[in-house]
């Protein structure tokens, strides 16, 4: 058979054949995902109850919905873990087109309650297209790099890939969603680096990036006097409004101490901390579980990343490897940035904490992506626990 014929046969592979069981998935990774999800749900319930009671009329408002999505997400995760991840190679085009439609479409929606154009409302579900964007980029880059492995030494091809990343970044930036842009950019860069990007180019980009950043600072495009920087450096400049959320977060974390107040015992969640079920859920975690609890959760995320990389390194092909790395790196990076935001180590940007923050669609998507990693683990040469 010629190369072409081979491809044809592959292409003709029936859709159902992707769901044939090929081996056991990695239990360690599964339990890490399950553990984080369960702890996330418990903490969401604790953190959201007072806010839910006051703003939604029932303490259970958020937890019941999130629980439903979690169950649904687990079903989809198990399904994804059964589906041979190569099926995504065939869906890459579709996913890309859908993503583009949504990323562009969202810019034409009307902004809701002071938010930017970040959310799409399609009947039952409401989600951020940038979330899909992240997955879509991981899939697209993994596909392109794995498929054109040999061209990775080609400067032009690398430039092409960078332009793909740039396209995603540009569209997300158009939503004025800086944190997601940074996230997508970093994920793209990591995939290109692992995929064989030339170090010279990386170095060049680094120099370009730094000088560009300095230029922006110098010309005043990024101003240190801008509110975000100002209230990051000293949230107490405006305790009532602009610095309020940050201050309340710090007060929550600070009053947790080493051991925490105990689960359910947060005081800050009683409407001091705005929307404690979202980006700032980790503040409540710190207040209730203390430094020890927070550290254990961070270790949990660390183990997830580590196990994801182990799976990736033992993956049977480059596509699987890059997919696994991209997916777990995305989770890990988001978790780190979230912790840095709630501790006011970096300026306040909208980054949610995976498995913890409220958001059904994003939880379902996260679990599906974890399902893909689990599937990769089925065919990888990992020592099964």
């Amino acid at each position, binding site marked *: 058979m010629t190369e072409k014929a081979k491809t044809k046969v592959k292409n003709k592979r029936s859709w159902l054949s992707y769901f044939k069981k090929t081996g056991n998935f990695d239990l360690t990774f599964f339990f890490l995902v399950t553990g984080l999800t369960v702890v996330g749900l418990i903490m969401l319930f604790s953190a959201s109850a007072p806010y839910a009671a006051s703003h939604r009329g029932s303490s259970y408002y958020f937890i019941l919905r999130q629980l439903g999505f979690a169950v649904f997400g687990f079903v989809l995760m198990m399904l994804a873990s059964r589906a041979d991840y190569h099926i995504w190679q065939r869906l890459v085009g579709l996913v890309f087109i859908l993503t583009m439609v949504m990323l562009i479409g969202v810019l034409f929606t009307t902004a809701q309650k002071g938010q930017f154009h970040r959310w799409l409302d399609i009947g039952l579900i409401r989600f951020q297209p940038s979330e899909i964007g992240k997955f879509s980029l991981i899939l697209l880059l993994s596909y392109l790099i794995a498929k054109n492995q040999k061209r990775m030494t080609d400067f032009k091809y690398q430039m092409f890939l960078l332009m793909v990343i740039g396209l995603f970044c540009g569209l997300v930036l158009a939503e004025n969603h800086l944190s997601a842009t940074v996230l997508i950019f970093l994920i793209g860069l990591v995939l290109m680096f692992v995929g064989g990007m030339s170090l010279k180019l990386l170095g060049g980009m680094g120099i370009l990036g730094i000088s560009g950043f300095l230029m922006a600072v110098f010309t005043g495009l990024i101003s240190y006097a801008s509110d975000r920087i100002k209230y990051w450096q000293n949230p107490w400049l405006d305790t009532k409004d602009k610095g309020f959320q940050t201050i309340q977060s710090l*007060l929550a974390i600070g009053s947790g101490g080493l051991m925490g107040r105990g689960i359910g015992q947060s005081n800050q969640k009683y409407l001091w901390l705005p929307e404690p079920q979202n980006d700032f859920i980790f503040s409540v975690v710190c207040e209730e579980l203390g430094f020890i609890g927070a550290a254990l959760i961070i270790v949990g995320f*660390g183990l997830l990343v580590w196990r994801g*990389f182990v799976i990736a390194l033992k993956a049977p092909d480059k596509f699987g490897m890059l997919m696994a790395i991209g997916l777990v790196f995305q989770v890990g990076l988001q978790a780190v940035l979230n912790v840095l935001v709630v501790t006011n180590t970096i300026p306040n940007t909208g980054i949610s904490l995976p498995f913890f923050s409220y958001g059904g669609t994003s939880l379902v998507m996260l679990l599906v992506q974890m399902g893909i990693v689990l599937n990769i683990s089925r065919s990888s040469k990992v020592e099964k626990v």
Partner: protein
Amino acid sequence: MAKENKRKLWLRALVVLLIFVFFGVFSTGYGLINTIFVNGEKYSRLAEQQQLQDIVTKAKRGNIYDKNMNVLATSATVWQIFVAPANMKDEVKDSVAENLANLLNQKKCTKEKVLEKLNKSTNYETIGQPVEQDTANKIREYISKEKLGSVIGLTETNERYYPNGNLASTVLGFVGTDNQGLGGVEAQYDNTLTGTAGRVIAAKTPAGAELPFSYEKVIDAKEGDSVVLTIDEYIQSVVEKYLQENVEQNRVNNRAACIVMDVNSGEILAMATKPDFDPNDPLEITLKSRVKKEIKKKKESNGGTITDKEKAEIESAVMQEQWRNKAVSDIYEPGSVFKIVTASAALEEKTLSDSDTFDCPGYIKIADRTYKCAHREGHGHQSLSQAFMNSCNPAFITIGQRLGAANFMKYRKSFGLEDKTGVDLPGESISSTHNTTGLMTNVELASESFGQTLKITPIQLITAISAAVNGGYLYQPHVVKQVQDADGNVKQTVSSTLVRQVISNDTSKAICHYLEGVVSEGTGKNAYVPGYRIGGKTGTAEKTDIGTKEGEAKKYICSFCGIAPADNPQIAILMLIDEPGVDSPYGGTLVAPSVGKMFEEILPYLGVSANYTDSEAKDLAASTPSVVGESVDKAKKEIEKKGLIYTVIGGGKTVTAQSPSGSSVIPSGGKVVLYTDTTAKKKKAKVPDFKGLTVSEANERAVEAGLNMYINGNTSDSTAYAQSIEVGKKVEVGTVITVSFREIVTVE
């Protein structure tokens, strides 16, 4: 995949993992440690501040009791009404104002006044004075009935209450708006009385948050301890009655003070300054004439105008003055009363003996100075006892010179006149002008020997005199004898503190003897009380230091210090009036009568029994029998039995009325008028003027008028100076009129 390619891939993935893990652990670790351990304490404190409301509950202030546990100051729970006008609907304001004004029922809180406050756009306005429980309940009812809970409220506070008004006000002091003690015992024992404030710590949330728990931690306020004073309410009221009377009669310009001390313990039984103030309303100016005078003075110097600020300054200064406890805070030249100290020292040092005699030509020359005696013609040849009775200055200057400066200074020190007494009251003054560094010159010694040029406080002087008459023991004066907790358990008892023995028992006895002579035969006669052995010393000091303007009358401080009983002293009374506005400003004339009246009421109260001489027994008062309803014959017999005489008016058989009424005190031999007919017109008499009459003259005039006279004060060589019913008034025949007598003593 090529093997090399795969290795490169591996390597790069590993680099990413390591960088990420390193960066992740380092950065999150930094963030958490910084927030939790570096700044955690600050953050948790701030969190607590916003999450908890900490309400301080005031402790009930302890009571102040007199020595017999009569309440002099207490605290009551009261409620202050407040409104939030900004949130009140305009249409209800009129009815709210009317209802609140009616419910409060306070003079200064009219409907208009309330409405004025309701029409403001503030969030908090107090309405009226704090109210007591029952009014507060009525207002609560009104609030709940009209559903005004969001705009009207009541806050609980403690209000200090002094049931006796002005009584002992300068000793008690008063409290400020936060119940902090200002002045007097209230300030001196503020910590004891205040107690410990309690706290209610409750969870607080932003509006709308419902807590699933109600967190409330209550730390009860601990009620303040009470203090029991050595002050006796009865003695205090007697003292204040006569002090006030004296201030009015003698038009005292610069206030008067009086102290009653238990000479054997240093306990202060009474201490008063007049005019004083009502601690229930300490801001009300009682020295109104003083304010007027000062304003007038200021206007003159300003050329006819005065600003509000200047007015306020004057009022504030006058207020400070009315709160001042003259008995411990003002220094003055004691004048001749001080001769007791000089004589005690000289007798103790044996530079003076009972048999010494003195010749007074009316003056004495010391170095280049000539001291005149008050009696210009001179007292001639006198014994020591006579020198005391005459209060002869040259004699006491001689005693001082013989004693010598060193000895004089030794006793000035050991009698406690150079140091604060340490009395447990705030604001005790002390003169800074004592010459304590070198030896006094003879001129200085001469002046101080008879109480001039040295300045001391009344409390210093009575403490020293108590030592001089009690056997020589100098006690530290005090007003608090006990501290009790809220349940009445004694927490602390203040016992008498003996400072030192200053003179011997014998010297002390001698001093008492001489002092008794002053009252029985000398300048202190006006303090004499029949049946009692009173001792004392008069004093009159010209206020040389303030300087009088040309043509202005000289200013004096007149004083008298009495002790009783003279054979075994129990109490001492020192009274001084500062700048009397009448003629013959002498302590023996203006002050001694008041002290005598005080002794007359205080000594029987203290259980000191009276022993009358025959002539005294003759004048002794009798109590009229109550005979209304009795037959005329029986009534006559009862009246005769009491040593009284009678007149019957009307032809009936039974007594229908009598004058004076039963149990009235009239002099022996007085007349009781009996009415036997209800239709008989009661006989009226016009009250004659007794002023300036001797006792016998006055008695004659009373009999002429058909009145009974009750004699008050010293009766030998005396003239009447006051009467209880004003001249010209028509009264029933037989009515008892009290006439006060005193001897004009012009020699000091």
